[in-house]
Every structure is written in C-alpha cells, then in structure tokens.
C-alpha cells in the first residue's frame, strides 16, 4: 500500500551542467498505491509537524490555561526543580512547557494503550482468520468503512492485512511524540500542544483499527441501530450458576470463554459477565453475556464473592485485583502482556495442569497468553470451584458493619483521603449507633477507589461497609443497555447531514469515557435523556454508555428501551467500547464526506476546519479519569470537536479556552469573498471543565453552535441554550448578543426579551459567512472579484 522512510543520499555527483555534494533527501513516507475514487490530499500519513500550522491556528483562538498539580518537575536527575511562577528548571523548561509536556505524556500513554490494544487484536485476528479477511463493518450500509484512516493516512484498508501498515505508522508516530518529552527536547508549550493534538489523532486511528478489526473478525453488530438489548447491573447475574468475571478492554479471552461454552453445551450453565469495556465487547459477541458496570464497580463486585473466577485482560484494571480476588478465594487468569500481575506464565502448560493447580489452591492464578486456552481454563475452573466456594464473600454482615464502626477513632482520615470528600466518618459514627442508612447514602457517589480503607488507621473495610449498607440498592441494579452497534451507517449520515450542518438538529452530544463522576453515573443518564428529548443526537460509548442506562421510568423501562438506537434526532446510541469511539469521530468526518462531498483522503486540515465551523458536535466525558480519556479528547480537539469534562477533569492540568470577551478572536474568512467576518464565540471552548451538571448542560447546548448554522438552525440552538439557562440558572444568559447574527436568528417565542437585551448591548446585525479558518479555502478573493 505504501512505503515509509525513503532516504536518498548523494555524496558527490558531477554532470555536465552541475555538481552536487552531500545531498541528502528524506521522505517520511511514499504512498505508492492507493484508491482511485478521490484525489490525494496534502497530508497522507502526516509526520509530527505536518499539521502544526493548523494546530497553532486553533491554539491561537483556544489558548491553553495551565493548572499545575504541583510546583515541581521531578522527571529527571537534575531535579526536583522548582518551577513556581516564572522560574525555570535546570533543563531550561518553564511551568507552561512542563505542563504541556505532562499533557503530552498523558496523551502518549493513552494513545499507546489504544495502539497496543489494536496491535493485540490485529495480530490475534490475523493469526486466527488470515490477513485477507475482508473489513466489513456494515455491509452495503457502510461504504466509508474507515473514515479516520482515510482522512489521516490517505489509504482505504480493505482487509485486516491492510491495517498492518496503518498500525505500524501509528506506533512510529507515538514513539516520536514520546521522544519529544525527553529532558532537553521540545521547549515550547505551543509545540508541545501541537504534539498533543498529533497524539490524539494517532489515538483515533488506533481506535478505528481496533474496532473495525474486531467487528470484522468477531462478527460484532455491524452498524446496527437495533443491536440487541443486554442486561446490565449488579443484580442481573444468576448467582446460582458458576460465574466468570472478565475485566478490561481486550476481548479475545472473553471470546475464548464464550466459544468454549458454546462448543461444550455449557452456554446456559455458566454466567459470563464483565466490567468495563471487555463487557461491552463480549456482549457484542454474545448477547447472553452480562455487563456488571463501569470500572468503579471492580472492588464491590469482586468482594461480593459472586465471581468464581476472574479473567483479566488489559487497561483500567486495579493493581490490587489479584489481592482482592484472593480475599474471595477466586482464581485469577491474566491474559495480557500488558498486565501480568506477577503470575507465572502457564501459556505452554496443559489445560489440565493449570486447572488442577488453580482449583486446588496451589496457585492463586496464572498468566495465559493464548485466549482460547484461557477461555477453556476459565470455564473449567468456574465449573469446578463454584460449588465449593459457595460465593465466599469479602463483604461483612450488617452486624459486623455496626460492630466494626464502633472501632472508629474519628480521625477523619477517610474523608480526607476520599476523592469525593464524602462524609464517611459521620456515616460510620451513625452506623456505630446501629443506623447504616448514612453509609448506604454514600453508595451512589462512591467511585469505588478504596482510598478510605487505605487511609483508615484501624483498618476498617470502609468501602465494604458502604456496599453492604447499600445491599438492597445493589440487588435492584437491573438495567438494559443496547449492545455496541459499531459504526454509523452512510444512509443515516445522509439523512441527518443536512439538518446537522444547517443547525436544525441542534447537535450531536457524545457521552464517553470513564466513571469518575462527581455524584454518580445517574447524572449521565439524566443528561443523555435531556438532550435526546430536545432532539439532539446522543451517542454513548465505554463506561458512560453503561451509566446512561441507569434510569427507569414508571414502567421500568430504561433509556435504551425508550429511545431509538439510530443516529437520528432524539436517538440514544451505544457505539460500544472505548475503541468504538472511533465511530463517533468517524461520524463527524463522514458528514463532511458523505453529505458535503469533501474529499477525505489525506485531507485532514480541510475536514477539521469543516467540522469546527459546521458540525455541532460536543464530546462529554463527565467522569474522565484515565490518560486514555485525555488522548481521545486530544483527537477531538484537532478535529474541531469541543470536549466538556466533569469537575475531576480539571486535573488534566490544562484547559483550552476561548475568550468571548475578545472580539478579535472570533473572525473567520468568508470562503465566498475572502472577507473576515465576526461569527461570535462558536464554539466558545475546545476543552473545558464544568463545575456542576447544570453548568455542563448549559455549556453543552452552547458549544453546539457553529458559524455555519442557518438562521433557522441558530434559532433552534439558541432556544435550547436559553431555555436550559433559564431553567437551571434561573435567569437569561448574558451573552445572547454574541450568538445572534441576524434578526432571523432570534427564536420567535423569545423575541421580546431578546430584543431588549440586544438593545442594551448595542447589538448590530451581521452576516452569515461560508466560514473557514483556512485562507486557501477562499474561492474568490476580493481583489480578484
């Protein structure tokens, strides 16, 4: 498909017309074979700096606001260096440079986790099915099957083997990006930020490689709006059966389990359930599997004693998962080179020998790097140990909670260790008097980290106290979630492309990422339904897709049952696991391609400019926690999609904020004339933390506005923004004048009150341009007219 790193050196060449000495030419990559439908854009397989100009243009408007974790840098032996204020470290770096460097590190970690995941999947699937296995993620409904890959790399992969080239490119770029974080390497914070964007873009390519490979190789739902509904929650597991718990993100071992159950007629005799994204993906393979919940359910579910065997793959695994499993006498099988937990490699041992050692208690667990063998071992162990284990719990009885609480010394260390600053000590004091209701009240907001227990000076199992006290709530945790559907169909894009770009569908809101929520996952369900009711398109993935299910109406119906699973106004979709986030970015790209007929092939800058100015999409990572969430967000920033994070997200240490009070920041070119036109702060921010759910909802509605909105579309968007603001803030917004471009933008039902504001603010009518930040997109310059 392409060749990389071409180098030509000429030491000395003499001809009749010239002589050349020490000529050296380097080409990052030569694309030698490609698809013919589109002309090649300017940046196929872009190098680290190929899109730097675009990045700097974006960063000029959305400037970084750095929020350091601490005053020092401790990354090398020069240090620690105090970087407070305007000080510089021994290497010469200042605080802005250091913070952007840390952001780049985080994004490299996130991107490498996804790229390693896609590498693991790709190698496994090629080994299993062959490199000529066709990529098929939606049959005739999905012709643009790899929009991110087409856009970034300029190639159209047709088989699993074709993805190798793309995968190798991503790995090479991440290595180069990580290199920039070396002490004594990059020194400019803005160039670090450009590299952050590049890491994010690499992350998106890796996500796409992983998900299109696994959809094709494992026959996951193919862009199916009616993908099956599966069970979700602590209470959905049939504890009378042997239970296998899978944790992580890389699904092949879970597939191995399901295959072994199918082959041996055990499907209805063993429960397979999962935590985090592996659970999404195993339900995409077998809808009989069950989802327990997001990552924060790990401690509570293991300690419940329900799992008879714990199978761990990669990403978002607790470092103490082996210790926790040992507390309930459940054997552990680790299956990934990324996470071996100190267990011996038994990959080459016989299944019988491994099963014997783990069921007898001779060994607490094993590393098995063959997913099929891991599957067989897991099933056989579960079946053998379940009767003897009798769901041995590590959760105390209520009496033990009360008695244990009496040992509390009221030192407050638990509260001061809690990320949520929950009033644990007061709840324990009440429990000591026999009232466990206050402990139960903490359950919804508890993120299950266990820091309270680590801090407790008398070693009370405080998280278990909370879980036990809320046992009744736990057992009622029974919801439905639609299995990850995968991509968005081309026909769906055709249907909504126009109303999205013109603004008549008020926006696409994507709830993605982890479960580090300030007040529990139900906030995600509430926000998702609010926007679906307002006819936004709501797209979910990962742990947020699970949390979006945490609601029941009077009839017991959950959001995925109440709302359409199609990419249409008012739909609530689950695309799948973390790697399925590729389909959300992909949908934005496909709007540019399918609806607007823009070329994708190696044409990143133009498409990002299109999305920033026209596609009212917003990512929301309400519980963003890991570096993976950072790299996914970074991919969105470069693509022109703003991201809102919850209050914990401020700890990513850098926001990208526009300034609506600086008029000069909000001019774009009118591509028709070349004039510079004021378009208002749309979108106002590229990366912002919201302090409360209410603030987030208003921010989301506002961030969906785009310069290209038609007057009808802008009026609809303004209606939602103003209506939410009035309801949640109790007053009208104070910046309406910045978003009204013409009289026709004003929502009819609000004309009187808005006119009053416009008069006060001395508003002047403006025009709606054909917006672009790229001067090369100007079709007819004024002087040429």
């Amino acid at each position, binding site marked *: 498909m392409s060749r990389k790193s071409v180098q030509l050196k000429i030491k000395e060449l003499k001809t009749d017309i010239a002589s050349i000495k020490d000529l050296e030419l380097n080409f990052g990559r030569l694309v030698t074979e490609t698809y013919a439908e589109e002309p090649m854009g300017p940046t196929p397989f872009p190098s680290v700096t190929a899109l730097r100009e675009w990045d700097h243009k974006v960063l000029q408007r959305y400037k970084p606001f*750095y929020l350091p974790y601490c005053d020092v840098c401790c990354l090398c032996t020069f240090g620690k260096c105090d970087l407070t204020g305007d000080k510089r470290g021994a290497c010469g770096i200042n605080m802005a440079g250091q913070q952007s460097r840390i952001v780049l590190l985080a994004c490299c970690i996130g991107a490498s986790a996804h790229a390693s995941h896609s590498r693991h999947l790709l190698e496994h699937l090629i080994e299993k099915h062959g490199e000529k296995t066709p990529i098929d993620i939606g049959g005739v409904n999905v012709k643009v099957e790899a929009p991110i890959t087409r856009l970034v790399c300029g190639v159209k992969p047709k088989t699993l083997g074709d993805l190798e080239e793309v995968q190798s490119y991503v790995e090479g770029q991440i290595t180069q990006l990580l290199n920039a974080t070396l002490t004594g390497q990059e020194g400019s914070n803005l160039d670090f930020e450009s590299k952050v964007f590049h890491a994010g873009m690499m992350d998106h390519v890796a996500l796409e490689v992983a998900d299109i490979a696994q959809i094709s190789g494992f026959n996951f739902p193919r862009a199916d709006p009616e993908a099956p509904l599966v069970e979700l929650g602590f209470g959905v597991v049939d504890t009378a059966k042997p239970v296998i718990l899978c944790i992580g993100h890389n699904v092949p071992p879970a597939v191995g389990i399901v295959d072994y159950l199918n082959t041996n007629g055990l499907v209805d005799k063993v429960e397979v359930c999962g935590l985090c994204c592996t659970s999404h993906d195993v339900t995409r393979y077998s809808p009989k599997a069950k989802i327990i919940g997001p990552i924060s359910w790990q401690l509570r579910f293991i300690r419940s004693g329900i799992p008879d065997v714990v199978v761990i793959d990669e990403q978002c695994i607790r470092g103490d998962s082996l210790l926790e499993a040992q507390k309930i006498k459940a054997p552990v099988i680790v299956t990934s080179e990324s996470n071996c937990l100190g267990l011996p490699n038994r990959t080459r041992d016989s299944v019988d020998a491994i099963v014997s050692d783990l069921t007898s208690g001779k060994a607490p667990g094993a590393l098995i790097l063959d997913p099929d063998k891991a599957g067989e071992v897991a099933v056989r162990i579960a079946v053998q140990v379940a009767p003897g284990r009798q769901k041995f719990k590590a959760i105390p009885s209520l009496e033990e909670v009360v008695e244990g609480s009496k040992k509390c010394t009221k030192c407050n260390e638990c509260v001061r*260790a809690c990320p949520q600053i929950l009033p644990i000590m007061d709840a324990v004091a009440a429990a000591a008097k026999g009232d466990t209701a206050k402990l139960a009240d903490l359950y919804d907001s508890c993120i299950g980290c266990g820091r309270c227990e680590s801090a407790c000076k008398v070693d009370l199992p405080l998280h278990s106290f909370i879980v036990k006290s809320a046992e009744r709530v736990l057992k009622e945790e029974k919801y439905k979630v639609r299995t990850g559907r995968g991509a968005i169909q081309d026909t769906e894009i055709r249907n909504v492309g126009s109303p999205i770009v013109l603004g008549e569908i008020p926006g696409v809101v994507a709830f993605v990422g982890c479960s580090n929520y300030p007040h529990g996952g139900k906030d995600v369900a509430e926000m998702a339904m609010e926007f679906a009711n307002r006819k936004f398109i709501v797209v979910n993935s990962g742990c947020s897709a699970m949390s979006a299910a945490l609601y029941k109406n009077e009839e017991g119906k959950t959001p995925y049952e109440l709302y359409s699973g199609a990419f249409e106004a008012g739909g609530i979709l689950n695309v799948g696991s973390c790697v399925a986030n590729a389909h959300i970015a992909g949908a934005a790209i496909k709007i540019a391609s399918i609806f607007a007929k823009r070329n994708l092939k190696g044409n990143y800058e133009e498409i990002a400019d299109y999305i920033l100015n026209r596609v009212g999409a917003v990512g929301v990572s309400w519980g963003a926690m890991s570096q993976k969430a950072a790299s996914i967000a970074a991919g969105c920033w470069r693509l022109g999609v703003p991201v809102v994070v919850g209050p914990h997200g401020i700890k990513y240490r850098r926001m990208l*904020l526009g300034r609506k009070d600086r008029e000069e920041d909000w001019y774009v070119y009118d591509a028709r004339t070349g004039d510079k036109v004021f378009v208002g702060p749309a979108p106002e921010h590229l990366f912002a933390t919201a302090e*409360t759910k209410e*603030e987030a909802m208003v921010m989301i509605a506002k961030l969906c506005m785009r310069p290209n909105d038609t007057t009808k579309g802008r009026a609809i968007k303004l209606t939602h923004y103003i209506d939410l603001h009035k309801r949640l*803030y109790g*007053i009208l917004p104070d910046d309406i004048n910045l978003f009204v471009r013409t009289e026709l933008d004003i929502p009819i039902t609000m004309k009187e009150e808005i006119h009053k504001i416009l008069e006060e603010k001395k508003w002047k009518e403006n025009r709606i341009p054909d917006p672009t930040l790229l001067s090369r997109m100007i079709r007819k310059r004024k002087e040429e007219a």
Partner: protein
Amino acid sequence: MATAEPWQKAEVPGPTKALVITKPEVVVAMVKKAKRPILIVGHEAAETEIGEKKLMDYAIRISEAGKIPLVATAHIVGEFIKKGFQPAAFMPAIDIGNRLVDPEWKGLDGNGQYDLALFMGLTYYMEWILFSGLKHFNLNLKTISLDRYYHPQASWSFPNLPVNDWAQSLDLIIGKLGGE
C-alpha cells in the same frame, strides 16, 4: 509561622505553600490594601450550611461590606438573585480563572486586572487547582481562600477549622470591613 495540612492529604503543592490565616484581621487588611479585589463564589456556597445560614449569605455580606465585586460560578447566579443580590458577573470557574491570568484583561468593569482574588464555595479539588493556576501564571495576584479547609496553593488560607470557628472568622471579617 503557623503551618497547616491540606484538607485532601495528597494535595502537596511543593516549595510554595499558602500562609495560614491565624487572625481574620489579616484578610481585612489585605482587602483594604488591595486596589482591585474580586470575590469568586462556587456552587457549594448554595449548599453549605453554617447554622441557619448558607455560605452564600456570608458571601453576599463580604461582597457588600468590602465593596468587592462577586462572581458566581456554575449555576448559582439565580440563587443570589433570589436573595435580592446581583452578582457583578457569573461565569464558569475556569473562565474567571483564565481571565485572572491574562495581564491584559480589563476586568468586569473595564478598569483593569485585579490584584486580590478571594475564593469560597468551590469543590475543594477544583479550587486548589485553580489556585495553582493563578499562583504560577499571575505573579501580581494574591489569592485568599475563605473556605473552611486549608488550601496550600492559595497565597493565604484558613487552616482546617471547625464550623463554629470558621463562622466566627467570617463574621469578624465582615464586621471589620464595615458590614453587618
């Protein structure tokens, strides 16, 4: 010099830590000395109870007594208005933080950047990280935490206080600023 521990114990900032407000008069003196003070109030002010009052009642009294413009963050501007108080502005906490590090910002009233920012009512972890941003990127700005817990990233902060001591300190500040 008095010392204090951060309320969230892992929040260890580095060499530069907030000076501890052992006497509320320090706050009064700093407000009086400041040419351009500003008070930023987060959403917890509408939830936190101090006796029969809310923290936002104290915020209003401080703003009025010290003639300090008050910026309401998150969604609580309506709560202030319900109490008959009009904040000088409302905006997300990150937006006011971002403006406070811009040397060219003209302020809410067009008269220039502020030299003293008092904070109260933000979630602890949001507030300390905002203090950190301000500490590093506006060397001309002093920051004060009026919250109950020690904020090491501020310039000045109360230590971790029992509710009654905190309320007394706030009352004293309000009184000394000439308020009721």
